[in-house]
Each structure stands twice: as structure tokens, then as C-alpha cells.
């Protein structure tokens, strides 16, 4: 560098974010700058800018204004304006005015991008400011809810654990285990084999297998223990744990944090917290005997969503709670169908797709489902599964989950197939990605078993992920598909609104905000062969791989949470007014703060989409 530009370098070196740059980068920086002078009162950034820059104030002052010309922020000497590089430092300001005669340094966005990529410490400055703002935004939204009535539905298992785990080595005798249980006043004990959970015994096991059975108490406890345990993670929702218990007919669930055992959840723990309508809803579903009764229970679902939205439930938890109820309804319908039709001739699994599979449902959405049938199926079994699928799909429709417009349902023979045929389907979709596959991708690349032979589903899923992992061409198609829905970034001045029809002056928050993130997460999951289906879990898993930085992963998770919260509050308001919930909030209904943060969230999506575009050269394939 020309050593005489040292003065400019020194000026930058004292100021964030440039103070995070190493010396050699700092020395190069002045050469890349341009300098302009803005007379007091002139528009900032200059209207005739030839390129996109970040602006650094060398002297003078600039007032940053929002779209209604309200003063948002004043930049003085050393102030940095990054909005034109689509960063989020002053996301709420749309333009500015030079408040004094002002000398500005201009740094091209293209160079900023390179620097951010090359220097993690420098990049962190930008990532952190985005993250902090989104985190704060989510917190504010949740705090605005009714703090007095914390929804029971959002209680996590860890909230219910009152005691540390009671464990004993797997080599202990039955008598030793029984003594420990009465000492600790617990109804169960976990048996550990070299630090790992090997099984549990409960006082029921003691009664049935030892006292009433013929195994003497000096025998090792392993003789009466239950192995093959279902466990839950400590952050599982209590409502989901309850459903797991009901499904398995057990009263005890070991609770883990990762691989470590942290406690035991009992049916009694749950019963104490089962006092709200929402929890009653789940247990009511178990009790009903007819589709009509089920439909009546299901009518309470919007009320549940309203309650959740008005407590401090996060969008993630609302989605999980609603999806769990849908699962329960589906299972009850299948049980009723099986009761009527008799046991299935060969094993099968009922699969749900789309938002239910991702556990991101809100209120009643369309139903997406499929049947996965064992390869042992004979042609004369077809009638049984046809009847089963018809009953369940009709039942779901009666419960408010209307038939899928694209006919992606188990009642469609195409989506009621053996494992072998499903493998062929996915093989074709992955090896020859055609518009059909891409259209179906949001349904069938997000699949989750709800009932039946789960092992068979895992076989299929492993097969799918093995084929998609590292499959460049397929991923490129999926990436291009993920770029079709763009966030409305002209949010402030020229918000992209839907005109005409019933959604006048609204925007489609599902397709412009939520779908882009779920699409991106799906691309990552398939590219990396990650099993999670829930978008947040996919992003968290992807952030552990090289495909997604931790910062960007967290930003996307926060952006999704914020956008989904906006949708849930919008729908709660509609439910309160007795309207049918939809995905079209009006920008006018949003507070200034919400609009600001929504724009932040949209920018996170845009930034990610740009990265995807570059990485997969998306758009060239279709």
C-alpha cells in the first residue's frame, strides 16, 4: 500500500468492525475505498451511487430516518452504514440526510463479502448484531403474551422432573434395587451398565415378576428389568411425553440430555400438570369412539392454538403441540379403522407428510399422508389397505383436515404402496429430478411415521438419505426449487401485497417467509443426509456440518421463529374474531417493531438464498 494512506488505515483501525481485521487486511483496505463529500442537507446514501457500498463517516454527521421520516439514528464520525449491503445494523432506517457537511468513505459490498468470508472475527460483528436483534425480537414478542397463564402445553419434560435420577448397577440384586427404591421413595429405578442405561424396573415389575412370580430376590435385577426402552429428551414437550406414554401403555419414561440420563418422568408427574383444556384435549381424543365425537373434539383445536398464542408459547412449541394433537387424532382414527376392519394382514406404517411431519402445523391444515406397506403384501390385501386409508382420510377431513388438493393422501392408490415401490419412487425422484418430484418434495421429502411399523420407515428413510447425500445434481435442483419463494424485501416502501380477491393489501407470510426457510433446511438435510424433519432441528443439525455456519444456522432458526410467531398471532387474532385462520396478515396490523424485525428476518433469508444461489448455481438448472 502507499504508506501515505496510513492515516486512513489508522482511522479505520480504531473503529468496529474494522478493528477486528488483521493488520495485513487493514493495510489493503484504504486502497479499495472511494471518498465522497456530501453537503449538509443532501440525501444519504447519495442517490447517484454507482454500486452498493457500506458507508463510513470520516467527518460530519448523518441522520437516519425511517419510511415516515422519523429520526431513527444519528451517525457521527466513525459511524458505519451497512444497509445497502443488505446487512442489518440499521435495518429499520430506510434513508438519511447529511446533517452536516460530511466526508464519507465508501467500501464496495463485494469486498465486504470477501472480508467477511476471510475473517471470522470481522464477520462475527455482523452476524452478532443480526442475531442479537432477532433474539431480542422473539423475546419481546413472547413477553407481550399473557405471562400469568403459562400454557401447560409448552411445559417441557425437564420442568416436571423433581428428583435426580435414581440408578443402580445392572449387576445388583433384586433385593438391593427394591431397598434403594423404598429408601428414595420412588416407583422405579434405572439400571446402569458401565454408565449407560441398560433397563429399568418399576414397582409393578417387582410385584408381577418377582413377588407374584417365581424369581427369588437374590437374583440379579437384570432378570426382571425392562430393556428396549423408549426414552425422551429433557426438552420434549410434556404433552408429547404424555402421548408417548399412552401409545406404549407405560407409566415411566427415562429422560435424557443427549446420551446422559437426567431423570425419570412418571405418569403421576404428568397427571399433576394435566389440568388445562389443552391436555384434556389430548386425553379426550383417546376416549372417543366415533368419528363424529372425534370431529367435535377437533373443533377445539383453534381454541387451543389461541390459548397457546396468548401464553408465552414459542412458535416452535405451538407447532409441536398442534401437530401432536393431529397425530393423536390420526392414531385414534387408525385404531378405530383397525377395530372395524380387523388386524392388518401384513405390517404397515402410516406416514404423515408436510407440516405435520415437520411438527410445524398451525390449526387445521390440509392433510398429507401415505401408506408404507410391507413387501410381503399380496394382491388380495389391497382391499384392506384401501378401506383403511379411506376411513382415516375421510375421518381427518371430517375433523377439519381437508383433503389434500394435490391428492397426496393414502386414499390415493399411488401413495399406498409397498416399501419396494416407495424405494423406486424416491430413486426416480432423486436420480431424475423432474418438476413433479420438486412439487412433491415439500410433502414426501418431509415424512414421519405416525403409526405402525416404524422400523420399515427407518429403512426407507436411510435409503433416501443415502441416495440424496452429496448428490450434487439433485441438490442443485432442490436448491433452485428452494429459491422460488423469495421474501418480500421491499417491506418498507413497496411491500409486495396481494391485490384483488379476498386478501387485499396483505402478504402471504407462509410462502414468502416460512416456506423459503423450510425449503432451505430441506436442501441442507438431503445434501448432508440428516434424518431430522423438523425445520429447526434440520438447521441445528446442518449447522454442525460444513454446509452451514453456526451463525447463519442460528440466524435462520431465529428468523423462522419470528416469522412463525407473527403468523401464529395473526391467526390467533382471526380465531378470536371467529374467522377462519389464514396466512395473510396485513402489514398495517403489525407494530413498527414487528415490521422492523420482520425485515431483519427477511434479510437473513435473502442472504442465505444468495449463498445458496452461488453455491449451487441455482436457477441455471430449471
Amino acid at each position, binding site marked *: 500500500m502507499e504508506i*501515505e494512506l496510513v492515516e486512513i488505515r489508522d482511522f479505520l483501525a480504531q473503529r468496529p468492525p474494522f478493528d477486528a481485521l488483521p493488520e495485513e487486511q487493514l493495510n489493503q483496505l484504504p486502497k479499495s475505498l472511494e*471518498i465522497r463529500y456530501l453537503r449538509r442537507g443532501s440525501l444519504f446514501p447519495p442517490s447517484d451511487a454507482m454500486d452498493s457500498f457500506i458507508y463510513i463517516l470520516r467527518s460530519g454527521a448523518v441522520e437516519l430516518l425511517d419510511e415516515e421520516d422519523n429520526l431513527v439514528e444519528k451517525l457521527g464520525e466513525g459511524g458505519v452504514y451497512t444497509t445497502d449491503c443488505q446487512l442489518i445494523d440499521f435495518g429499520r432506517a430506510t434513508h438519511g440526510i447529511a446533517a452536516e457537511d460530511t*466526508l464519507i468513505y465508501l467500501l464496495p459490498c463485494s469486498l465486504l463479502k470477501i472480508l467477511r468470508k476471510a475473517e471470522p472475527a470481522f464477520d462475527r460483528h455482523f452476524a452478532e448484531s443480526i442475531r442479537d436483534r432477532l433474539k431480542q425480537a422473539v423475546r419481546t414478542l413472547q413477553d407481550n403474551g399473557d405471562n400469568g397463564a403459562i400454557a401447560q402445553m409448552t411445559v417441557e419434560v425437564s420442568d416436571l422432573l423433581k428428583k435426580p435420577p435414581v440408578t443402580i448397577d445392572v449387576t445388583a440384586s433384586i433385593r438391593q434395587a427394591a431397598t434403594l427404591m423404598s429408601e428414595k421413595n420412588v416407583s422405579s429405578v434405572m439400571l446402569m451398565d458401565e454408565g449407560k442405561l441398560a433397563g429399568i424396573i418399576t414397582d409393578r415389575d417387582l410385584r408381577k415378576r418377582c413377588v407374584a412370580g417365581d424369581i427369588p430376590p437374590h437374583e440379579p435385577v437384570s432378570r426382571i428389568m425392562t430393556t428396549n426402552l423408549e426414552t425422551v429428551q429433557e426438552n420434549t414437550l410434556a404433552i408429547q411425553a404424555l402421548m408417548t406414554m399412552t401409545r406404549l401403555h407405560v407409566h415411566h419414561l427415562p429422560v435424557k440430555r443427549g446420551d446422559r440420563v437426567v431423570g425419570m418422568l412418571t405418569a403421576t408427574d404428568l397427571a399433576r400438570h394435566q389440568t388445562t383444556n389443552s391436555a384434556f384435549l389430548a386425553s379426550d381424543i383417546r376416549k372417543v369412539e366415533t368419528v363424529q365425537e372425534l370431529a367435535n373434539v377437533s373443533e377445539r383445536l383453534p381454541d387451543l392454538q389461541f390459548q397457546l398464542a396468548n401464553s408465552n408459547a414459542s412458535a416452535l412449541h405451538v407447532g409441536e403441540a398442534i401437530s401432536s394433537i393431529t397425530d393423536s387424532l390420526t392414531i385414534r382414527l387408525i385404531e378405530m379403522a383397525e377395530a372395524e376392519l380387523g388386524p392388518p394382514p401384513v405390517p404397515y406404517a402410516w406416514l404423515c407428510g408436510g407440516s405435520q411431519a415437520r411438527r410445524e402445523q398451525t390449526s387445521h391444515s390440509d392433510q398429507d399422508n401415505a401408506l408404507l406397506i410391507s413387501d410381503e403384501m399380496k394382491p388380495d390385501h389391497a382391499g384392506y389397505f384401501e378401506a383403511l386409508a379411506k376411513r382415516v382420510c375421510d375421518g381427518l377431513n371430517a375433523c377439519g383436515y381437508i383433503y389434500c388438493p394435490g391428492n397426496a393422501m393414502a386414499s390415493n392408490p399411488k401413495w399406498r404402496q409397498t416399501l419396494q415401490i416407495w424405494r423406486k419412487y424416491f430413486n426416480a425422484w432423486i436420480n431424475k429430478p423432474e418438476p413433479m418430484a420438486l412439487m412433491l418434495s415439500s410433502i414426501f421429502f418431509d415424512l414421519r411415521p405416525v403409526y405402525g411399523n416404524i422400523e420399515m420407515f427407518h429403512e426407507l428413510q436411510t435409503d433416501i438419505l443415502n441416495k440424496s447425500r452429496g448428490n450434487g445434481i439433485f441438490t442443485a435442483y432442490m436448491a433452485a426449487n428452494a429459491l422460488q419463494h423469495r421474501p418480500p424485501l421491499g417491506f418498507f416502501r413497496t411491500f409486495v401485497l396481494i391485490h384483488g380477491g379476498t386478501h387485499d393489501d396483505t402478504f402471504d407470510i407462509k410462502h414468502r417467509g416460512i416456506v423459503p426457510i423450510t425449503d432451505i433446511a430441506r436442501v441442507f438435510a438431503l445434501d448432508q443426509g440428516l434424518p431430522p424433519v423438523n425445520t429447526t432441528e434440520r438447521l441445528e443439525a446442518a449447522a454442525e456440518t460444513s454446509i452451514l455456519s453456526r451463525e447463519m444456522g442460528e440466524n435462520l432458526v431465529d428468523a423462522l421463529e419470528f416469522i412463525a410467531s407473527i403468523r401464529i398471532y395473526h391467526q390467533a387474532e382471526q380465531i378470536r374474531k371467529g374467522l377462519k385462520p389464514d396466512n395473510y396478515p396485513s402489514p398495517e396490523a403489525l407494530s413498527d417493531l414487528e415490521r422492523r424485525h420482520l425485515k431483519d428476518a427477511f434479510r437473513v433469508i435473502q442472504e442465505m438464498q444468495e449463498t445458496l444461489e452461488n453455491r449451487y448455481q441455482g436457477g441455471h438448472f430449471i
Partner: protein
Amino acid sequence: MLNRFLSLDSLRKKALSKAAPGILHDYLETPLTSKTTQCDDLVIVSLDLETTGLDPEKDKILSFGLVEMRHMTIRLETARHQLISIDGEIPEESAVIHQITDDQAATGIPIEAAMPELLQRLAGKVMLVHYAAIEQNFISTACQKLFGAPFVIPTIDTLVLAQRLFEHRNHTVQPGDLRLFNLRPRYNLPNYKAHNALSDALATAELFLAMASDMVPRPSQCRLNRFLTR
């Protein structure tokens, strides 16, 4: 006005006829920037020379610094600083000002090696200088000695512009008012500590941007002839 421009162009043609084939001849063959050029289309080279004294016949050029402006935007990627070696010692009284020591000057290149780049960088462009007489006379003298003809270029002199502005506003000019580093604070421009050819060229460029936005607030009405001092 027309008269002055014509005379500058005729000076160029006259010099061209004298210049031996080579660097200066090529330079003089390049048409001068038209004085009606829109400011946004101008390419201006802000230039500063450090010299051993004020007399172009006796004194020597020690360094040049320059930076280009396009679209009324300074482009630092064009910044250039060149030390020039001289025969003999640097007089102490000038070293105090430009702070170039004999040792530093020894790392420079001879004037005949420096002139080609300087002329190439200026060809077809407008020269911006604070107190143009020094630069004009030293470069012209060097051209005469090396190539046998004078140096001709449309020039903007911020000192002359400042003088006009003071007169226009009926301000009395105090001693020192027209110096580069006393003018800058009037336009809210920062203080530069360093004083060398490049930082002074940059300081002059910034001062000109400030003056121009003051003199012609509307960019669409901004033309070169509004600022030309020669």
C-alpha cells in the same frame, strides 16, 4: 472564456510542434478535456509536488503524489506516491516542511524516469492543484529540459477558487487563510497530520469536492468551466 480555452489549446499545438518525438509529444497529442464537460464525466487528477524550494530553475522536484477523481468521487486505488532522487543535498529549510531526508530521496528514481508516468497519468485529464504555479512551473521546466517543449494542461486551482469565494462574499483575506489546511476546517474536513505529496493531493481533492458542492449544489448544472482557473 472561449478565448482562454482557445489559447490553452493553441498553446498545446504550439508546444506539440516543438516537442521531440517521445513522451511529451504523445502527451501533447492527446486532446485537452473540453471545458463544457459535465462534472460527472470529468477525470481529475489531484497532484502535489514536494520541491527543494520555490524556484523551478534552481530547485528540484523531490516527490509527486496524485490521486484520481471520477464522477466527483475520489478513487483511492489510483493513489500514487513517487520519491525522486536528486544530485546534491536537500536544503535543510525545505526538509523541515516536506520531511523528506536525503536517505529517503536516495531511494527515489531520477526525474527523467519519473516524468513518463506523471505525463501518462495526466494526459487528456484535468489537473487539480492547490496553488498551481509551483506544479505548472516545475513540470513545465522539467519538460523543457528533458523534451524541449512546455507542459500544457487545463487546471483547477483550489487556492484561486478560495480567493474568488472570499471576494465574492466580501470577506477580507487574512494571512494564511488560503492555505490548504486552514481552508479545510471551513468545510468540516478532518485534519490530516501527515504532510507529504500524496496526503496533500488527497487533502486538495477533498477540499475541491467540498468547494464544488458548495459552488454548484446541483450536479446536473456542474460543468468544468465553472472551476477552471487556467
